[in-house]
């Protein structure tokens, strides 16, 4: 019996992971494919490798039994079965919502989906009082904070770079001049993000000053070395690894930078968001195996690896054909704009999470694209779509809460009648 439950739970976990890939990761990689910095195949390979690496190297091997600590798990110590059914229902409800949202072309936060689902079964099983409502409020704040912060940072970045490089008399010379500074900036943000966000689960306890002292010289060295690489890549004769063949030298320059940020985004995604699918699965495994409820559960290596690959695989399986058309359809994204949106988003996530502001990657990225659009960067942006996206963010919570309640009731009933 246990083995049956575990297999089904694993399948549902894979379903959730694949959906995360098709929604979350597709957004993160989409700007790179759209700008032509990466081909579809390159994007898929980078996603799968970086995402799995993020999950395995920097993912949580120990996680809260109940996602994001929304409920105190000791409340379930007398009824571990309820917790198991609840987490099962949560995974399924969140997976279904993300699937629906993907079908409707709405970028939603997978974290918010799983949190909503957990709240749903929590209300039914232990009552509304047991839920950490402060965390729910922080989610509501993020609907506003994330897109605004993303828009401001990406917009300012686009304005400065367009003025400094594209509008200069000699864009190629200008980008060569800017190159070491830009590479320095990108590397700094990547290192800081890796340490603060990607690697926070390793509990390295590195202080802020230490991090800065470490990252500054490294970034400076890479910046100076990078200048040589950029010079070589921008020569019309040289073989370019990323970006389309006929793109201009400046486009090739930004393609290189964009690929770096794309890799980072996929890595950070693996480190943080794979847990949305894998965490509840680990909780189910723990309950089934020990017949008890722990405060925190261990996540086995195989589960993280499988989750990381499944997320990348979800991008490939669901996304292959459609992502192929992105490059042709969204000609408005060029490497400079794509880089600003993506790097702006990465920077926003770093700054805001350091400040303790609640943000969601998806929401930040949507804001960043609009921010570049406001700077008259994008060919044309449909602001009406933004309204639909905003609705979908708000609906995420009530929808997953309700769906999970229904699934929880149905599953409990089914379990009770079988046993």
């Amino acid at each position, binding site marked *: 019996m246990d083995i049956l439950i575990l297999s089904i739970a694993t399948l549902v976990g894979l379903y959730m992971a694949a959906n995360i890939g*098709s*929604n979350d990761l*597709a*957004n993160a990689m*989409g*700007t790179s*494919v*759209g700008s032509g910095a990466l081909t579809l195949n390159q994007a898929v390979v980078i996603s799968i490798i970086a995402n799995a690496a993020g999950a395995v190297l920097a993912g949580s091997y120990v996680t809260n039994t109940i996602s994001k600590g929304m409920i105190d798990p000791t409340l379930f110590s007398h009824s571990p079965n309820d917790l198991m059914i609840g987490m099962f229902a949560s995974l399924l409800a969140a997976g279904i919502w993300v699937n629906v*949202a*993907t079908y409707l*072309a*709405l*970028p939603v936060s997978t974290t918010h989906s799983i949190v909503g689902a957990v709240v749903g079964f929590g209300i039914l099983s232990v009552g509304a009082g047991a839920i950490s409502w402060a965390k729910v409020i922080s989610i509501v704040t993020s609907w506003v904070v994330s897109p605004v912060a993303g828009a401001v940072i990406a917009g300012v970045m686009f304005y400065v770079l*367009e003025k400094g490089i*594209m*509008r*200069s*008399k000699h*864009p190629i010379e200008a980008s060569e001049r800017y190159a070491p500074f830009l590479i320095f900036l990108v590397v700094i943000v990547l290192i800081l993000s890796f340490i603060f966000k990607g690697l926070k689960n390793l509990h390295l306890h590195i202080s802020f000053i230490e991090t800065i002292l470490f990252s500054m010289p490294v970034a400076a060295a890479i910046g100076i070395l990078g200048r040589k690489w950029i010079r070589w890549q921008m020569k019309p004769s040289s073989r370019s690894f990323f970006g389309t063949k006929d793109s*201009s030298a*400046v*486009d090739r320059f930004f393609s290189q930078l964009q690929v770096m940020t794309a890799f980072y985004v996929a890595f950070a995604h693996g480190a943080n968001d794979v847990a949305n699918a894998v965490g509840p699965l680990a909780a189910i495994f723990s309950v089934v195996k020990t017949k008890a409820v722990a405060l925190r559960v261990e996540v086995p290596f195989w589960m993280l690896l499988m989750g990381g690959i499944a997320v990348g695989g*979800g*991008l490939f399986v*669901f*996304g292959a054909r*459609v*992502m192929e058309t*992105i490059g042709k*359809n*969204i*000609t*408005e*994204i*060029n490497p*400079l704009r794509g880089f600003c949106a993506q790097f702006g988003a990465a920077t926003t996530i770093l700054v805001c999470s350091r400040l303790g502001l609640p943000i969601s990657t998806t929401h930040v*990225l*949507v804001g960043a*694209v*609009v921010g570049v*659009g*406001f700077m*008259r*960067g*994008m*060919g*044309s*942006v*449909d*602001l*009406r*779509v*933004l309204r639909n*996206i905003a609705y979908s963010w708000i609906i995420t919570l009530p929808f997953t809460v309700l769906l999970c309640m229904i699934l929880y009731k149905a599953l409990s009933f089914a379990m009770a009648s079988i046993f």
Partner: protein
Amino acid sequence: MRFLLSSMFYKSPFENLQRHADKVRECAEMFRRAAECHIKENCAEFDHLTDEVAKLESEADAIKRNIRNHLPRGILMPVDKFEFFQYLREQDKVLDEVEEALFWLSFRPSGIPHEIAEDFMGLVDAVLPPIEELSRLVRLATDYFKTGSEKQREKMKSLIRDIRQHEKEADILERELKAKVFTQIKDALAVYHLIRLAEIVGSIADHAQNASDRMRAMIAR
């Protein structure tokens, strides 16, 4: 699955603007052939060309409506929408005037008096380059709003200067033609017809220049 953010990117209206500009250019070429044919006696092709132009005009009109009807509020564009519409209006007027000029030619099948035929063709040839240049301008603009490159902008500015120069030359030719009509043609009906025709042909270049001025405003900074 789809790339979820893609729905946020609205199809760029510049593609359709290019199609519209190409139709205008096509019409201008037909107009030249029709005018040349009309000056010669026994022009068999003229009616066919007029029909062709009328057909192209209605196609271009459909493109124009399509652009206008699909740019609702809430679409963020790299240019001022008001300016964009004004540009479209002027580009469309170029086409209207070409069609109108053809109609005026057809009103008097007796043709253009041979005394002024050469000057008339000179005026027709003078208003054609701005139309060619307009279509090239749109192509450059599409590129410029994609890349934001300063080099592209300089090219556009020099093209706009060319259009202005051509319009000035066409203006002079129009004045000279009118003066010649008044001195050499004695038939009052013919004078009226020719003066009006010269004005219409001249206004083709005027509208092309107006359009390019709008474009200049769009790339102003």
